[in-house]
């Protein structure tokens, strides 16, 4: 379908700034094809929005593997160290306390706490790190004012390109999106 159903003027009136452009598609194949082309055009500040998980989307967008595992691994190691350190400090150093004839500092007895703190630190860092890397929580977002965006949780696949992208140009980017065969292209106000 051609993009003759332009919903907003090519340039908005003076005073309003543009957050970016969104284009929507209703067929997965066309959508993924368009996503690849947007990636090839060299955009960096752009995203896709789909009602469900689309296999192959990460590859089409060229999303690099997340750095989260390194954070989680580091946090896990920290948790392990804290767990053993805490038990050594409290039980063997600061207030030596003999329990059932075991050595003052004995590793087997300390493993469960070290293990639990490893898990705790790793799990919390995974959650908090995921939120931080995604810039969450974010209570409001310019895309929320887009009518198309509301449908991205229902029946349409969306590509959004931010005006902040160095490659962004209201005219040429719109032309690019329109050349990909979307149903609609819409400018979103900031």
């Amino acid at each position: 379908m051609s993009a003759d159903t332009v919903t907003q003027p090519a340039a908005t009136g003076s005073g309003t700034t543009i957050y970016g452009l969104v284009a929507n598609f209703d067929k997965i194949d066309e959508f993924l094809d368009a996503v690849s082309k947007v990636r090839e055009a060299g955009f960096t500040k752009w995203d896709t929005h789909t009602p469900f998980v689309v296999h192959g989307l990460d590859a089409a967008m060229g999303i690099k593997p997340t750095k989260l595992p390194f954070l989680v691994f580091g946090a896990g190691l920290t948790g392990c160290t804290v767990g053993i350190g805490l038990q050594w400090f409290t039980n063997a150093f600061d207030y030596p306390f003999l329990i059932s004839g075991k050595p003052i500092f004995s590793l087997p007895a300390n493993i469960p706490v070290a293990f639990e703190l490893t898990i705790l630190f790793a799990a919390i860092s995974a959650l908090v790190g995921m939120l931080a890397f995604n810039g969450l929580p974010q209570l409001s977002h310019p895309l929320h004012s887009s009518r198309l965006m509301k449908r991205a949780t229902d029946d349409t696949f969306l590509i959004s390109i931010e005006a902040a992208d160095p490659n962004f140009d209201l005219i040429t980017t719109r032309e690019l999106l329109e050349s990909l065969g979307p149903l609609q292209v819409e400018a979103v106000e900031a």
Partner: protein
Amino acid sequence: MQKEVLDITTEPRRLDGRSTKWTIIAAIIGVIGIVGSYVVASGTDDGMDYLLQTYLVSFAFFLSLSLGALFFVMLQHVTRAGWSVVVRRIAEAIATNVWLMAILAIPIVLGMEHLYHWAHPGAADHDPLLAAKIGFLNPSFFVTRLVIYFAVWSILAWFFYRTSKAQDGNGDPALTRRMEVVSAPGIVLFALSLNFAAFDLLMSLDPHWFSTIYGVYYFAASVLLFFAVMPKILVWLQMQGLLKRAVTVEHYHDIGKFMFAFTVFWAYIAFSQYMLIWYGNIPEETEWFLKRQTGGWTAISLTLLFGHFVLPFLMLISRHVKRRPRLLAIIGVYVAVMCWIDMYWLVIPEFSPGVARFGLLDVMVYLGMAGLYSALLAWRLGQAPLVPEGDPRLKESLAFENA
């Protein structure tokens, strides 16, 4: 582009002539191992005793592989898993090998008196603990139980193999339903039989000692060994040009995840057993670990701690490693070696306190059993397509992708 469902009808998925070739090669290795074992064992005074002991090590090792495979097959059915269909036929074949283990159990039964102290005539006469256990630990009941275990495993394994093979022809979804229905009680039977088999075959080597988690330990080792061996088999088949499209990196990834999970599970169970005994500090319990912590066995115990847990844990933690089939296969072989050492550590300290006498005889016995086991496996894999072609979830498995 969105991934299309692969068409595997255009690629070879049967072993055909290779099956016979591999069967013969494996059988020759097996015969070399058997003859070699006899020659090496007869060369020394206590060679025959040690032959039987290391025979139990390799027996426990290969039995655990078949049991791990049987558990995998039932687990896939009971959870109605879609991803695993393309690798299930190989698991079915490995599980069916369990009847070979039933035959290989005969030397253990014949040499019972030499392996199990409680089976010695008169052993219970001056030993109140053994006298109290004689209702359970006596030769005739022991043999009866072995027969029951192997009957349960052989019938289950054979049922899944045969039903799945029948489905190749007709693609009847009712057969899948049948396998699902059998799997649930099958897993219960499996859990009970595996637990008691581990008690009988391995734990009763020291009839005074007991640990309620021992069966779970053997279960963890079994399932881990199965997932450790799978990547090697798949890579080997793919290097021969088979299943190159049917089995994708996604399937390796999932097998790698399982390998990782069961590495951790094994360590968790091993530590649970160790810590309770260590903490309780009761001589009748700690003596089992004391044997494994003195002399040459200290090194083996530490090898297991670092080689069986810490190293594989670090090696398998990354997604990128699990998505490289050849690398995963190499790690799998390494883990399998550790699984063998684990069985060695369970058995041999009972006979050889202080000295880990690993040598040529262990290798020969292993080769003999590995040869026979692989020969039967290669023959079995040649009897049917390598993929359950009639499975209604085959398409799902072919298109499977890790999110």
